[in-house]
């Protein structure tokens, strides 16, 4: 027997209370894991963004596109391997009014060399490249809306008014988990050629994505691109994919901060529950501590015994919470969110960091929740605690 086994057995002494406390901590851990996963799912895009890609758009507003000729200039900039342009189409399937998905007109011949993570069966790829009205859609989107290769789909445009017809020619997936697999790509040429002669929207591109040779040169190349258009009517803003994603995060930073704050509140609540239990059980055992002190145990032995008890409960709760988190957060909510909010959360999974943090925090919180009761128990007056009944 060791002193620690005394602590462990004392945990189990009031079973109902131990069970409730462990459950309470487990619930708090589930909430914590959920919130941290929302946070990490939001930032995962930025963190996993390709290091060798830059994006170029209108410096002042993303609403106004760039002249198409800019693409040629960008391809000339030293260090650029390849560049591909695209325009935001913003279409909706009238049969699925409330389903939001990203629809974009893309330069087909460069798409796969710039976005090398896209995976499309070679036959589909050939067909799509050769069909001017062909569309390439993400597997998550295709599954959700029930589209198959060969289907004809009509999208209603808003920026480009009218009804637009497409044939689904290919379905893509991705080698990288963080890519939105609910996008709708089609030929930019089809869009442009359909616009009336003289339309201000003709020969305009929304943005340019560039692959560069050396990721370390990203800053210099971005500046070189922007300098090339400095004297033009429309100036550009070039950023690495990561910086672009981060600036999007900046727009929701208040939400992220609030979630962050709430996840801290959870930890505090957890500490209250745990501290409460430990305080109660040590109070009930005052006399036992008195006996131990009489026998010759020192205050730090008593404190240690209480702390071990708190850490054991914290660890049990943390472990249970983590075990519950996986089915709840990943199976239940994760699948729903990936399918329905894929453009915001393409990858809604518990990260290893979150899991480890939850467990470590549960243990640390156990420790800190036990500090005050441990201090009190250690400072008990031996004679008084022996005299006190119960």
């Amino acid at each position, binding site marked *: *027997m060791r002193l*620690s086994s005394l602590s462990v057995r004392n945990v189990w002494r009031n079973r109902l209370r131990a069970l409730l406390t462990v459950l309470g901590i487990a619930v708090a851990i589930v909430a914590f894991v959920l919130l941290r996963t929302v946070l990490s799912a939001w930032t995962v895009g930025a963190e996993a963004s390709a290091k060798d890609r830059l994006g170029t758009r209108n410096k002042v507003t993303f609403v106004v596109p760039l002249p198409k000729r800019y693409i040629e200039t960008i391809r000339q900039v030293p260090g650029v391997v390849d560049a591909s342009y695209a325009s935001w189409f913003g279409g909706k399937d009238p049969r699925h009014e409330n389903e939001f998905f990203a629809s974009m007109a893309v330069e087909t011949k460069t798409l796969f060399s710039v976005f090398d993570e896209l995976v499309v069966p070679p036959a589909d790829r050939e067909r799509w490249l050769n069909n001017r009205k062909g569309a390439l859609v993400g597997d998550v989107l295709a599954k959700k809306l029930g589209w198959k290769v060969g289907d004809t789909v009509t999208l209603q445009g808003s920026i480009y008014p009218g009804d637009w017809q497409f044939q689904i020619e290919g379905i893509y997936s991705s080698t990288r988990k963080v890519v939105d697999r609910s996008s709708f790509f089609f030929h930019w040429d089809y869009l442009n050629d359909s616009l009336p002669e003289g339309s201000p929207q003709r020969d305009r591109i929304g943005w340019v994505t560039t692959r560069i040779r050396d990721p370390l040169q990203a800053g210099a190349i971005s500046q070189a691109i922007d300098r090339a258009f400095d004297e033009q009517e429309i100036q550009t803003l070039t950023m690495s994919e990561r910086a672009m994603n981060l600036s999007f995060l900046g727009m929701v930073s208040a939400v992220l901060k609030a979630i962050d704050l709430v996840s801290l509140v959870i930890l505090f609540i957890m500490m209250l529950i745990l501290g409460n239990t430990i305080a109660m059980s040590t109070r009930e055992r005052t006399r036992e501590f008195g*006996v131990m002190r*009489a*026998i010759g*145990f020192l205050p730090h032995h008593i404190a240690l015994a209480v702390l071990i008890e708190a850490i054991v409960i914290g660890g049990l709760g943390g472990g249970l919470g983590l075990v519950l988190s996986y089915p709840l957060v990943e199976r239940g909510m994760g699948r729903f969110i990936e399918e329905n909010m894929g453009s915001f959360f393409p990858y809604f999974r518990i990260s290893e960091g979150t899991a480890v943090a939850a467990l470590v925090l549960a243990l640390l919180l156990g420790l800190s929740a036990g500090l005050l009761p441990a201090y009190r128990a250690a400072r008990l007056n031996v004679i008084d605690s*022996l005299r006190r009944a119960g």
Partner: protein
Amino acid sequence: MNSSPQASPSGSDRGAASDIAEHARPTTAESIISLRGVRKTYFRGKEPIHVLQDLDLEVPVGGYEALMGPSGSGKSTLLNLIAGLDRPSAGSLLVAGADLGAMSDSQLARWRANTIGFIFQAYNLMPVLTAVENVELPLLLTKLSASERKRRAQTALRIVGLEDRMHHYPRQLSGGQEQRVAIARAIVNDPQVLVADEPTGDLDRQSADEILTLLERMNRELHKTIIMVTHDPAAAERAHITRRLNKGQLI
């Protein structure tokens, strides 16, 4: 993390021994407990309460003494002082060669672990530990190996006649059995002095007699000096000497 107390820095026991030696002073060879002019004063608010007043007491090695007196007479305070749970307000207090009044809390704790065995009215066993584990508890403060601790705990239980209840929890034992486990716990580290606070107070007559017989054996066979506070005249009769306290003074 090694939570066992025996992991305390090596040499601490030697340290304790030398601490005790420092505070030692010559006593009459046959006295193990020696009180001279001991006074104990508590304060209730600003008002002093004199629990013990100028108390002198000598207990010889191997003595078995009963302390009797009405409640509030100071007998429990006296017992606490002898057991090193409390320090006198004035006077000198020597137990087993140590000057208790001059020792720090942690020195006292180490001293208690080596010198004193406690027996309480309410037994005070740990409910989550089995009988043998309860007896083993004080040995966690020593550097003995786990197997040696276990062997000694079993021996102590055999002495009190409970080897067949070794793995029972306190709630599975009768009051008399619980108190016997408590006595085994008190003797397991071979202390020189046993202090018993109303050891038969919660027991029926027959169990009480068994406990008293056991204490007698501890005194006679193991040569433990025993100080016992009791209300029970039958218990007091078994002691060599019965001392009576009233209003903080021996009469």
